[in-house]
Structures are given as structure tokens and as C-alpha cells.
């Protein structure tokens, strides 16, 4: 016992005094990595971490285009049948070969109870193994964007899962932790050497990876640092090489420092305001007997009262891109055909008067304060802008755990006026049209599951359904444009802006920043 302690002390002291190899990259994020099970938590930071050790049938490249990964190619011989040809000679980290059995197993596991990724593979799809390297997915209805989210559906090793009692995705009331949440066995560019949940995770390069690595790293050490000042200090002092996110007020400071810079770029997330248009009387307003947001003129007035350029310069310090649409321009080819209605407080006041509110009215607003960049500050600015047109807003800003519990379906959509951010998981407009703009009158269909405002336009929904089935890209884009035009005319929502990404990167590291904010270090190089 004593001897072991002495040996470990000696080895650790010697480790502490040798300088870290230049090919060790230290990465600190605001959030932490809890479970290693790739089906437990559908959250972009976690998905990015798992993307270093696991891979899906498809992946997305630096410009977010879909590229082959574990599937070399695929085709749709019929609209409801997708055939995937799997890559040969791929091994899991423990040496097991990757075959069609693993794909079938993963498809079942991802749809099982306890998985947070159930919607990625349709529940009624049949997955059939044709031979060791060919798998068919038989759907009940055509779905041209079936694979849009499959870069987050990671393939697991059937033999390993069965041998370690990890067939069910992380059981709920277990007395012992699930094996898969503490161990990994993927096909990806890195293996996990050690994992202390919430403290430190060490990744080691996988020498048997099937792709030729673009990185030159031997090791990645990930530590979460939730305190913003500490995270920036760690970057400035050189203790970490990459941090995400850099708080806006520290960006200039990091750029002025000698050993780090900030990578910025627009994120795919669109921040917008929603107004309750479904209730007959608002939950949080002094207007009784009717709902002011049901009147198009009131919604238009609210839209025109907001000075988005002022928010950009004063609140976001220039780090936002005002939106005209509910989706990021990078994700919709015809987005340039849309322009944002001008800021017009006089016109807004006139519209309010026409609608019957010459002295304005009072309304309650819900806002998160720790989810999006400067979210609470944006809401406070909006309170001031609406006060100019006579609307008195009472702002309730809360941490995200409470905020989402209140305004989402589980809280019965309890909001009259709220701020929300959305990145379509499929990186496609249909997700926006279906999830947040579709009527929510039929819960079983899943339409409008995150439509907190209750906006409902049957014509719009009909177009959404056509978009899902249309395989021709040009026709599809025109349909989407039609849909968005209807919603814009209705002033269904008030899109605000795309927030900016801010990654702090040491000058010794070259890194590609992807617009979906996934920090993927297998594209990073670090010099001596």
C-alpha cells in the first residue's frame, strides 16, 4: 500500500515537472460532459464531444454539407426504401468489426425507452439487414430528409453493448450506473482514456481510424469551467488552448492579448419573439375579455417597434446578424428574397391606435437569463422599446431550468410574450415550419410541439406537408418560400437576429469553426 503510494507520487511528481507535449490540446467549455452514452442527452455540446469517439452513417463537413461516414453510399430505389452501403474494414475501438448488425442494433436502441434521440429514426421504420455491409430502411411514408440529423445518431457496437449489459439506453432508476455512461466503444478518431463526469475527460488519438486524420493531436484534455471569468483567465494564462464560449464583454480583451484570439461567426440559431395568439384572453395582461395578439395590427406594431440595429450595436456589441426569417440565411437558399420590415415606432403607435389601444396595454414577458447570448439584456432593451409605443411590459427573466419548464408543452405553454432561440436540428426549413410554426391542435401528430405562441394557419400547414414530400430541391425551396411569405404577412413571429459564436483559441492552434457551434477538434492542429 505504502509502496504503491510512493510509486504513484514519484510518477506524478515527474509528470508534473515535465512540460506538456505540444500535441496535447486543452479544451475548456462552459458546460460539462456527463454521460458517455451517445443516446442520453440531445444537446449540441454533448453531441460534439461524442462526435470525437463515435460516428454515424453520415457526417457533416466544415460547411455543414452531408458527407458519407460509416455509410459509403446510399440510394432510394423507391421513395420509401433507403439502401445504405456500409464501409468495409472499420473497427470499433476494442477491435470488433463494424457490420450491418451494429446498425440494426443501434436503430433499435436509439428508439428504445430512455433514449433522447428517438425522433432521429422513424418509430415505424423497419431496419433490415441485407448482408453484412448493406442495410435497408423501409419507411411508411416518403421522407427526403431522413438522414438530415444522422450526423448525431452514433452507431454503437452490438457485441460490446450486449456483453456489458448496456442494451438499454441508460436506465432510469438504476442502483448502479450504466456501463455505457462511463465507458465508450466507438469508431471515431479518438478514444476516451479516462472520464470523471463533470471534472475532466482525457481523449487519446485512435491510430486505427479509417479516415486520414487532419489533426496532429495525440491527446485532448477536456475540463469544464463554468465561471466565465475563470475560463477567460485560463485561456489568457495559457493553461487551456480552446474555450467556448467567450463572453461578449471579454472578446476585445482576448483579442488584445498576446497568446489568444477569438474566432467569431454567425451561429445558425435564430433568436425570436413569440406572442400568444391562441388563447381568448392572455394569461399575463391587463386586457380582459379579448386577446390583443389575435389582431394582426398589434403584432405588426410590436414588430415595427423593435430597433434591431440598436440591439445589435448596444446589446450585442456588433455580434449579431439581424434576421428577416425564422431560419438562418445559410440554411435556406432563397433567404435573400426576404427583407426585414423597417423599424417604425410612429407607424407602430398608429397601428396600435387603429387596433383599439390608443394608450397601449400591459403584458407580461418571459425570458431566459442563462441560455442565449445576452438574452436577459435583449429582453430589457425590448421592454424599453415597447414602452415608447405605450405598451408596458413586465419582464420575468429566469434560469433556463425554470423558464423552459414554464413555457414549453410540459408547462402548458404558459406565456403571453416570450423570447426563444431555435436551430433546426435537421438544418432544414421543414423543422422550423413543423415544430415551431405549425398548428398544435393535434398533439398526436407532433406538429407544433414547440409552438408556444399557438400560431395556426391551415394554408401554411398544407404547404409544410407538401415540403416534406417534395424531392426536387428547386420546387421544394419555392414551396418553403411560399410558406414563409404567408407567415411573414401574418407577422406570426418577430425574428430578431442570429447570435454570433465566440470561440477563444490560442495562437498556437488552428481550428475550423462550424456554424452549428460544435467544437470539433479532429480538425484542429497545434504547433510546437
Amino acid at each position, binding site marked *: 500500500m505504502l509502496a504503491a*503510494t510512493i510509486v*504513484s*507520487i514519484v510518477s*506524478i*511528481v515527474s*509528470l*508534473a*515537472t515535465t512540460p506538456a507535449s505540444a500535441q496535447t490540446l486543452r479544451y*475548456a467549455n462552459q458546460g*460539462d460532459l*456527463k*454521460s458517455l*452514452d451517445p443516446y*442520453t442527452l440531445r444537446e449540441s455540446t454533448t453531441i460534439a464531444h461524442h462526435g470525437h469517439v463515435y460516428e454515424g452513417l453520415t457526417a457533416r463537413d466544415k460547411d455543414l454539407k452531408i458527407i458519407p461516414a460509416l455509410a459509403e453510399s446510399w440510394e432510394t430505389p423507391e421513395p420509401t426504401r433507403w439502401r445504405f452501403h456500409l464501409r468495409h474494414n472499420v473497427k470499433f475501438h476494442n477491435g470488433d468489426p463494424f457490420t450491418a448488425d451494429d446498425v440494426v442494433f443501434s436503430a433499435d436502441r436509439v428508439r428504445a*425507452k430512455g433514449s*433522447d434521440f*428517438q425522433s432521429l429514426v422513424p418509430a415505424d421504420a423497419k431496419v433490415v439487414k441485407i448482408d453484412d455491409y448493406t442495410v435497408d430502411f423501409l419507411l411508411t411514408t416518403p421522407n427526403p430528409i431522413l438522414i438530415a440529423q444522422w450526423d448525431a445518431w452514433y452507431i454503437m457496437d452490438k457485441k460490446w453493448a450486449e456483453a456489458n449489459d448496456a442494451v438499454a439506453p*441508460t*436506465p*432510469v*432508476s*438504476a*442502483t*448502479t*450506473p*450504466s456501463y455505457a*455512461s*462511463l465507458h465508450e466503444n466507438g469508431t471515431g478518431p479518438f478514444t476516451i482514456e479516462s472520464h*470523471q*463526469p*463533470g*471534472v*475532466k475527460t482525457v481523449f487519446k488519438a485512435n491510430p486505427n481510424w479509417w479516415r486520414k486524420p487532419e489533426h496532429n493531436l495525440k491527446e485532448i484534455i477536456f*475540463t*469544464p*469551467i*463554468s*465561471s466565465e*471569468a*475563470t*475560463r477567460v*483567465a*485560463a485561456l*489568457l*494564462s*495559457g*493553461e487551456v488552448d480552446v474555450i467556448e464560449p467567450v463572453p461578449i464583454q471579454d472578446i476585445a480583451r482576448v483579442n488584445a492579448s498576446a497568446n489568444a484570439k477569438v474566432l467569431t461567426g454567425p451561429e445558425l440559431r435564430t433568436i425570436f419573439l413569440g406572442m400568444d395568439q391562441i388563447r381568448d384572453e392572455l394569461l399575463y395582461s391587463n386586457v380582459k375579455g379579448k386577446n390583443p395578439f389575435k389582431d394582426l395590427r398589434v403584432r405588426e406594431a410590436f414588430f415595427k417597434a423593435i430597433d434591431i440595429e440598436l440591439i445589435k450595436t448596444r446589446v450585442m456589441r456588433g455580434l449579431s446578424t439581424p434576421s428577416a426569417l425564422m431560419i438562418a440565411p445559410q440554411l435556406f437558399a432563397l433567404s435573400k428574397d426576404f427583407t426585414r420590415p423597417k423599424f417604425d415606432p410612429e407607424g407602430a403607435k398608429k397601428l396600435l391606435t387603429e387596433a383599439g389601444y390608443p394608450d397601449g396595454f400591459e403584458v407580461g414577458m418571459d425570458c431566459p437569463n*442563462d441560455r442565449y447570448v445576452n438574452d436577459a439584456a435583449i429582453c430589457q432593451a425590448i421592454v424599453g422599446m415597447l414602452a415608447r409605443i405605450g405598451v408596458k411590459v413586465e419582464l420575468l427573466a429566469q*434560469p433556463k*431550468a*425554470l423558464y423552459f*419548464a414554464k413555457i*414549453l*408543452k*410540459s408547462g402548458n405553454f404558459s406565456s403571453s410574450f416570450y423570447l426563444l432561440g431555435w436551430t433546426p436540428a435537421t438544418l432544414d426549413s421543414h423543422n422550423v415550419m413543423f415544430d415551431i410554426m405549425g398548428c398544435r391542435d393535434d398533439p398526436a401528430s*407532433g406538429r407544433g*410541439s414547440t409552438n408556444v405562441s399557438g400560431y395556426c394557419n391551415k394554408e401554411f400547414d398544407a404547404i409544410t406537408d407538401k415540403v416534406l414530400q417534395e424531392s426536387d430541391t428547386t420546387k421544394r425551396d419555392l414551396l418553403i418560400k411560399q410558406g414563409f411569405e404567408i407567415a411573414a404577412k401574418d407577422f406570426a413571429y418577430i425574428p430578431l437576429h442570429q447570435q454570433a459564436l465566440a470561440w477563444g483559441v490560442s495562437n498556437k492552434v488552428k481550428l475550423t469553426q462550424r456554424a452549428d457551434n460544435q467544437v470539433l477538434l479532429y480538425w484542429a492542429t497545434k504547433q510546437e
Partner: protein
Amino acid sequence: MLAFTLRRAIQAIGVMIAVGIISFSMFRYAGDPVNQIVALDASPAERAAIRKSLGLDDPVPLQFARYFGDAVRFKFGVSYQFREPVAELLKERMPATLELAVCATIFAMVLGILMGVYSALRRDSWLAKIFQAVSLIGISLPTFLIGILLIYLFAVVLGWLPSFGRGDVVRIGWWTTGLLTVSGLKALILPSITLGLFQMTLIMRLVRAEMLEVLRTDYIRFARARGLTTRAIHFGHALKNTLVPVITVAGLQFGSVIAFAIITETVFQWPGMGLLFVQAVQNVDIPIMAAYLLMVSLIFVTINLVVDILYTVVDPRLRSSISRPA
């Protein structure tokens, strides 16, 4: 003496049961636990099944009895975020917090006593006045600000000490210690100062006041008249009598040091129980919150009990007053 101890022990158990009731009610009244476990679109049948498996349909006293029975055996359930048993998580993180708290207390006591004695003995020197100013700073600046200032000065500008984390740790059994490695010791310095600064000013002022008081008493004057050396008087007699209330206060404060560790751990990303608790609050991870509440209450109650008993052992005057019926 025995009756006194028994009475205090029973009071302690009463406090623990009260805390147990509060932390149990967190489960029931701080939101539906089923919501935290299942996906947003789970069917009513699934929810009913989970309610049954968690025993949420049983009568409340039975649920509380079950909860408390498990808690006494250190079975705190499974964390919602980590999907690991909470007892394991706490066991993993406890050494970090305890080490930090002990180092902070030692720092506070050593420096506090030294500074307090000096400012009592050399009341009008300029060094004593500096100590007074420092004590004002220690009391008025909030902990997180002190932490960030120290990080800025020592990690960013000077680069002498690490800005976060615990450094390399050595595992001995289930305990992990940072005291045996260079990086571990370096990492302990700034957090200990941050956490201990408030304590240190408290102890310094207390020692100074007590020392001045003791130096005015008769027996010190008689000792001087008797011809004892200054050193014998100051350190042999005065300091010993000063220390008794100081140690009592420091011991009682140990509980609050562990509580304040939450802020220090958040600033320095120190992987202890406090940081675990803060993350649990942000993610509404009720099993961890309830378990942390119980653990910290246990520590407080135990320390208070031990200090009370020790106090009567150390100070003979109290023993007789206690054995007489109140």
C-alpha cells in the same frame, strides 16, 4: 455529564429529522420528478409506470420513512443528470471540499492568530494598522471578487499559480489528495486564501480583542509583578487563555466554511461537493440537492455537538454548572 451529552445528541437527531423532512419535500413540491426523468413527449402510460416504480403513489409518511431509511444508510438515489448513484458522486467529491476547507481554516487560524497577537502586543505600530486595514478588506470584499482578483494577479499577470482545477491528485483508497503533488499544492493556494480570508479577519479581530482583554486582567499584572519574563507572560499565560474562545469560534465556523466553499469552488472550478450542488441547482437535479442538504446538516450538527462537549471538557467551570439540574 452523560445526561448532558445524551440530551445534546437527541437534539441533534431532532435537527436531522427536520432537515430530512425539508429535503424530502423538495422532491414532492419542487416540480414533478417524473418530468425530469422522461422525455417531454412520454405517454401517460409511461409516466404512470415510472411513478409506480419510484413509489410515488404510496402515502406520504410511507414515502418519507422509506426516503429517510435509505438516507441513513447513505442511499440517496440516482442523479438525474449523471445517471449515477448520488452517494458515489458525493464520495468522489467530498475529499476535494474537505481538503480545501481544512487548508483554508489552517491558513485562517495561523495567520489570524499571528496577526491578532502582533496587533494586540504592538497596538500602535504601523504594521498593526496595516493589519487592521487588511482585515477591513477581508470582511468587505465578496468571496468571488477576491477569487477573481487573485486569479487575475497570480495566474494571468504573473503566471505563478494555476487559475482553475485541482492539479494532479494522488488516490489513497477512496480519498484523493492534492497535498502530495507539486501541481496539487500550487492549485490549493489561491482557493484556500479566497475561502479563508473572511475567517482570517474574524479570527484576527477576535484574538486581538481577547488578548487586549486578557492583558488587562489581574493575574497578568500579578505575574508581571512577580517578575516573569514578558515572553512567558504573553505566550505562556495570555495566549493560552485567549485561544479557548478562538478555537470554539473557528470550530463552529468550519461548517460555514464548507458552505461558503460553494462560491470558491465555482470560481476556481474546484471539483468538490459545492460545485456539484451548484450544477445540481441549475439543472434541477433534486436527488443531489437533497443529499447535499442532508450531508452538510450532518457536518454542522456533528461539529456543534463535538465543540459543545469539548468545551465542557476543556473549561472546568462549565462542568459543575451543567451537572446541576437546569
